[in-house]
């Protein structure tokens, strides 16, 4: 498949409200999860999370969409595209999320429980807040508009779908990524599944106990070669390949042998026309849950032995539908920088895992990296990014 150019990047997460801030704090090793501020829980354990501090709520839309819009603004500005220039192009939007389309509102539900005829205000806000539609409305985009709800692989899948639109000529430009907010309902849900860590998450560590939820958004501007040539715009990265496969095994647990992940990575390699030896590094899903990290490290060892890898979730938390997109943005930025950060939270190797992530900021050679996502429902997605021309 021909590469698709990435000409703009945007990122907001607990590590920062702009990509440059995120990269700076990640490489400085700053940031730690804390008990949630935006909501309370009567659960006896206060599980820490990675919240985006100082990002105000917008009553007109759900926080997920506000986060997505914030990152989209940064990505379009980075690409040098404003509303006027976008109006002259066929521009699509593809956004991954988990919360962004959920018709769930606790206030509404509690009113029902109390025997009160519930007001529809919160539900109407959800209806107006479809994350892709919000971006399309804000920028007056006329192309396809798609919100992907593939659980935690949504962001990766959204970027790949948008790349497909560019390759096939459906759009000139696409904004793609993922967005998710930290919500009480998902917080309680992950605790109920007993896969949340009551301290900082420790991806790939012997003592890992689970994930820390996070929130944020990552957005990439993808652009056709024709439009990019006309605008004389350099690429910050390229989407080189993508693969996706389902475990068809369990609703919330990965296949023990990583069957789907192996196929997804194999497809991505084939599509990009590369092999494991070409990779500079892997940005792993690395949630810090015992099952995920066991399966993922086995696949990393078998398919990509010796390739440096890390999880960035020790800096961002698990941002669910945004995770794959945030990690794609960080992967592109690390390729540009020629360096990857330490795998935060890792200190004690797990003998069962054999492979270990990088422990400190590490220079990289080469121009290609892989970012992978595993999701509830058994989805596995892998995207291969190449270094751009502006590095």
């Amino acid at each position, binding site marked *: *498949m*021909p590469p698709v150019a990435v000409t703009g990047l945007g990122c907001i997460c607990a590590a920062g409200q702009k990509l440059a801030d995120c990269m700076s704090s990640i490489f400085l090793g700053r940031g730690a999860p804390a008990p949630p501020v935006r909501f309370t*829980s*009567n*659960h*006896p354990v206060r599980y820490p999370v990675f919240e985006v501090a100082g990002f105000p709520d917008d009553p007109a839309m759900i926080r997920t969409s506000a986060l997505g819009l914030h990152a989209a603004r940064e990505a379009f500005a980075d690409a040098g595209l404003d509303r006027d220039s976008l109006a002259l192009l066929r521009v*699509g939007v593809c956004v991954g999320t*988990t919360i962004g*389309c*959920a*018709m*769930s509102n*606790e206030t*509404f*539900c509690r009113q*029902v*429980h109390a025997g009160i*005829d519930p007001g*529809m205000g919160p*539900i109407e806000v959800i209806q107006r807040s*479809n994350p*892709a*539609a919000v971006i*399309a*409305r804000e920028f*007056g*985009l*006329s*192309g*396809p*508009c*798609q*919100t*992907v*709800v*593939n*659980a935690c692989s949504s962001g990766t899948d959204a970027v790949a*779908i948008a790349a*497909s*639109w560019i*390759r*096939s000529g*459906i759009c000139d430009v696409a904004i793609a990524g993922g967005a998710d907010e930290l919500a009480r*309902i998902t917080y*309680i*849900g*992950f*605790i*109920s*599944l*007993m896969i949340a860590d009551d301290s900082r998450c420790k991806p790939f560590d012997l003592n890992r106990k689970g994930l820390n939820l996070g929130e944020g958004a990552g957005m990439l501007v993808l652009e056709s070669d024709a439009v990019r040539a006309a605008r004389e715009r350099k690429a910050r990265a390229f989407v080189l390949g993508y693969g996706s*496969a*389902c*475990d*068809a095994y369990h*609703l919330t647990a990965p296949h023990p042998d990583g069957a789907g992940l192996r196929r997804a990575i194999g497809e991505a390699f084939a599509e990009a026309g590369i092999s494991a030896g070409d990779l500079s590094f892997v940005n792993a899903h690395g949630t810090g849950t015992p099952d995920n990290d066991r399966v993922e490290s086995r696949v990393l060892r078998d398919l990509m032995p010796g390739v440096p890898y890390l999880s960035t979730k020790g800096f961002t938390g698990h941002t669910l539908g945004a995770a794959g997109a945030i990690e794609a943005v960080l992967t592109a930025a690390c390729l540009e920088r020629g360096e990857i950060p330490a795998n935060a939270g890792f200190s004690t190797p797990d003998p069962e895992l054999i492979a270990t992530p990088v422990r400190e900021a590490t220079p990289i050679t080469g121009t290609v990296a892989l970012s992978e996502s595993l999701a*509830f*429902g*058994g*989805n596995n997605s892998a995207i291969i990014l190449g270094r751009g021309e502006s590095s």
Partner: protein
Amino acid sequence: MTHPDSRIVIRGIGAVGGFGCGVAALEQALSGGEVRPGRVALPMTAVSDMAAFMADTVLLKDFLPVKALRRVDHYSRLALLGAHLALADAALPEADRAGLGVVIASGHGATGITFAFQDSFINDGDICASPTHFANSIHNSAAANISIMLGAAGPSLTVSQFHLSVPSALLTARQWLLERRVERVLFGAVDELSRLTSHYWCRQHGPAADGTLPRPLRTGADTAIPGEGAAFLLLSREEDAANGGYCTLDSVTTGRNLPPGPLSASPGLLLLGADGIQATGRRYAEAAAGSRIACYTPLYGSMPPGPAFDIASAALILRSGVVFPTPAGDACDFPAAVAKGGEPVGPGPVGILTLDDDDGHGLISLGSL
């Protein structure tokens, strides 16, 4: 690289809705021209219930052991039934399921179980939240259950774009086939009428007066009756469909800012898609002006998966070559010609136009094999 010369074929149809279950039930409803809606309870409003096209999943036991369905909610059951019906209709061998891609379109997702999950911790405290309810409330639970129960290990995608979910998801399903990412895609659209969505409908549209039926081709009045159900299609490239199929899926376009005025229609176009919702009715009438139109929403109700039921109906028309009668077609005040039942479909394509109240649109074009 896409292969634009490849034609995409609808090989199998699985549908469950207010009309019954299976392609034969849908065809019977289309031929008969009338389905009486049932009632859905409205525990949160002054009225106790309202008219709605409700779907029954009892026939799922023909495909799956009851034990396997113990923890599967109504939403996923609808999807599982639609999926199995489509594969049975296409006579797809079990061995061919392994690489099957699954694409699901859903406007609202699993709202019933999402509500039940919230019930679990509101009732007994956060520590008592139900992990089973939470796992099943994830938006891609239907796709996951289908993949698990069918052993479909290809890529899986769920799209939620409210009323435009079907064209949006179908765009990607078609891309997967054109890119040869998969050999076949099981595409499905599903939504349920839960406590939440029924209440929301009632607040938005009000309950239909007793005994009235939808009049989707009349502008200026909200005559829609809500529905629930699942409509599934087995899609493949034409070379994989040597043993038959219904029709071709020629194009899918979706976006915003549909130019005002009539669609620049292909000669002989037959247009489907009106669903009786007032907010989009006038815009639909404007776009359909001068076209030949048909409408079957009164047989399954208005719902985000509606366009997938329209595709299934159009596929049956294209296979038989004959248009079904439009229920309440005489109540049309659109500046368009309502196709009479029994007339030839003609040489042109069948289009399914979907509009939302946010300037979005989708247009799906089907052709004869």
